[in-house]
């Protein structure tokens, strides 16, 4: 997920976080599970912490919760602002808030930094109580199912009886899918955007190049590096490369074209950044290393690569057999990382398995990151799915 696609045109007012349809200033919280937690790999840890945010309130019947799942480089901060001077809101702020498509006056919205992450949840950069040093690559291998199991413990702790919906884009869509398979009677709806039921060889290949960039950086040191150090060059390159896969050719052409950077001057015979796209990617790489841990990047990309529910069950229909949720799958025409075809195949497998599901496709030029798009069509679809109302059924005006 890129940082800037949905960044709204920076509102001029310093009170923008007080906008009526905004959740305003939010604060992350920590949930600590103090019992041993077993990973799918068989490895265990003595307990874990998950950092999360929530907006809105749980109702009396405890069934209005909407779990929002983030993508590879995302986090728990999906809406609102951390302070009045924040220059950017949460990553899905355009979708979530009072009166928005995911209406926080109606729903109790929760978003959790995944297990294995590095934004406050336990992961490879956390301290291993056994050694007093960061886990590094001694941290257990994490799968999407492990992430889901950990988040379920948090939802139980919060008193959520049933999820009104689980939703996410990209890896967040995998997480949502896993929730509906693992906890079928707990999950009433799932919204999966720009996702896949298993990555293509091409997508795995891109992840592998990213991992190699990190692991070939001498500062990676087999995953053993100090908190303020590590393979910064490798991680930045991994991010720059991955970032290209989140955009589209047409989108990049529209955004950058062949425009040159102002400071490039007339000097053509240099390897300094000349084109805007170069300085943009360098900036993306640099800002990423300040907020992301290289080992977490290895772990989470690995979890994404491994995700393949059809493999264990034989077919995707069999994997979906337990699902009780109604599903909404959304694909984006210009997404070539998890293309429409792969999203359609999720929907078709659900329908073949006899489940209720819909598939819709939006024509945008933002590539994989399209799910973060500011689009009234997308908002109406998501709102319609979450708030589907019997009264609409015979309204011919729809």
């Amino acid at each position, binding site marked *: 997920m890129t940082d800037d696609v949905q960044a709204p045109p920076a509102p001029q007012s310093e009170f923008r976080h007080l906008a009526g349809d905004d959740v305003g200033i939010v604060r992350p919280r920590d949930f600590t599970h103090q019992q041993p937690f077993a990973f799918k790999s068989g490895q265990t840890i003595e307990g874990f912490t998950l950092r999360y945010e929530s907006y809105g309130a749980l109702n009396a019947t405890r069934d209005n919760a909407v779990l929002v799942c983030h993508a590879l480089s995302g986090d728990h901060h999906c809406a609102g602002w951390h302070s009045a001077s924040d220059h950017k809101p949460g990553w899905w702020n355009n979708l979530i808030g009072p009166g928005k498509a995911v209406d926080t006056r109606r729903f109790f919205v929760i978003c959790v930094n995944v297990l294995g992450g590095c934004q406050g949840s336990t992961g490879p950069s956390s301290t291993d109580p056994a050694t007093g040093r960061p886990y590094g690559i001694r941290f257990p291998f994490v799968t999407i199912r492990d992430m889901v199991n950990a988040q379920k413990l948090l939802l139980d702790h919060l008193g959520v009886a049933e999820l009104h919906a689980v939703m996410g884009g990209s890896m967040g869509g995998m997480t949502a899918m896993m929730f509906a398979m693992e906890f079928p009677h707990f999950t009433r709806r799932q919204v999966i955007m720009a996702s896949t039921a298993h990555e293509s060889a091409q997508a795995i290949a891109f992840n592998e190049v990213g991992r190699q960039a990190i692991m070939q950086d001498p500062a990676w040191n087999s995953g053993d590096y100090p908190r303020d150090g590590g393979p910064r060059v490798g991680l930045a390159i991994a991010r720059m490369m991955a970032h290209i896969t989140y955009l589209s050719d047409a989108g990049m052409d529209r955004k950058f074209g062949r425009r040159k950077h102002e400071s490039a001057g007339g000097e053509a015979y240099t390897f300094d950044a000349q084109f805007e796209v170069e300085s943009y990617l360098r900036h993306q790489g640099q800002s990423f290393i300040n907020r992301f841990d290289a080992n977490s990047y290895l772990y989470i990309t690995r979890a994404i690569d491994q995700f393949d529910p059809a493999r264990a069950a034989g077919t995707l229909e069999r994997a979906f057999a337990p699902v009780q949720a109604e599903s909404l799958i959304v694909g984006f025409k210009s997404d070539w990382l998890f293309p429409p075809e792969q999203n359609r195949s999720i929907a*078709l497998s659900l329908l073949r398995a006899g489940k209720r599901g819909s*598939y819709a496709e939006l024509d945008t030029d933002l590539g994989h990151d399209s799910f973060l798009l500011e689009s009234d069509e997308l908002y109406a679809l998501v709102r319609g799915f979450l708030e589907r109302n019997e009264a609409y059924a015979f309204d011919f005006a729809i």
Partner: protein
Amino acid sequence: MSRLVEKRTVDMQVIGEWVEPTSRVLDLGCGRGELMAYLVQAKQVSATGVDLEFDRVSACVRRGLSAYQGDMTVFMRAFPDRHFDRIICSRTVHELNDPAGVILEALRIGNKVTVGFVNHGFWKNRIDACLRGRKVRNAVYTTAWHESRPANPLTIADFEDFCREKSIRVVRRAHLLGDWRTRCPILPNLFAGYALYDLARA
């Protein structure tokens, strides 16, 4: 209710009589889901629709229905034989690229296939074409030729020929007069404005 909405609901009633309660129904060219919503309420069917347009699929989702945005033939190829109890293709058949292909594929994945279409052999339509010398325009075909999608008008006689040629079994027919309500007693190709067929494999 406007005359158009009334006409829209006529085939709903006939189809509603034919559809078995709680059956698994696929609506090809489901539009904004009016027919599916009716069948879900009247017959408790489990319905899925297919349509090409985002806005129509989105409207179905808002109604609480399942709908799939995409090409109906590609969609049908993804399903095993007899997956659905009934496939409905009403007021869509004249706009298909490969009507025979669609109907035969529907007969593969569905036990019954309901096809509904405007009969262009209806006397008024003949007069329109002959005397006025104009493209048919009525409550259903409201647009001028240059605003319309490519259409492939057919008549009841054409459709009967097609079923015979392809050895498709006609389980039931409903031929409705120009009011799209009263059953047509004689010479349907001349007097029926709308026709509904329930088809099955021979």
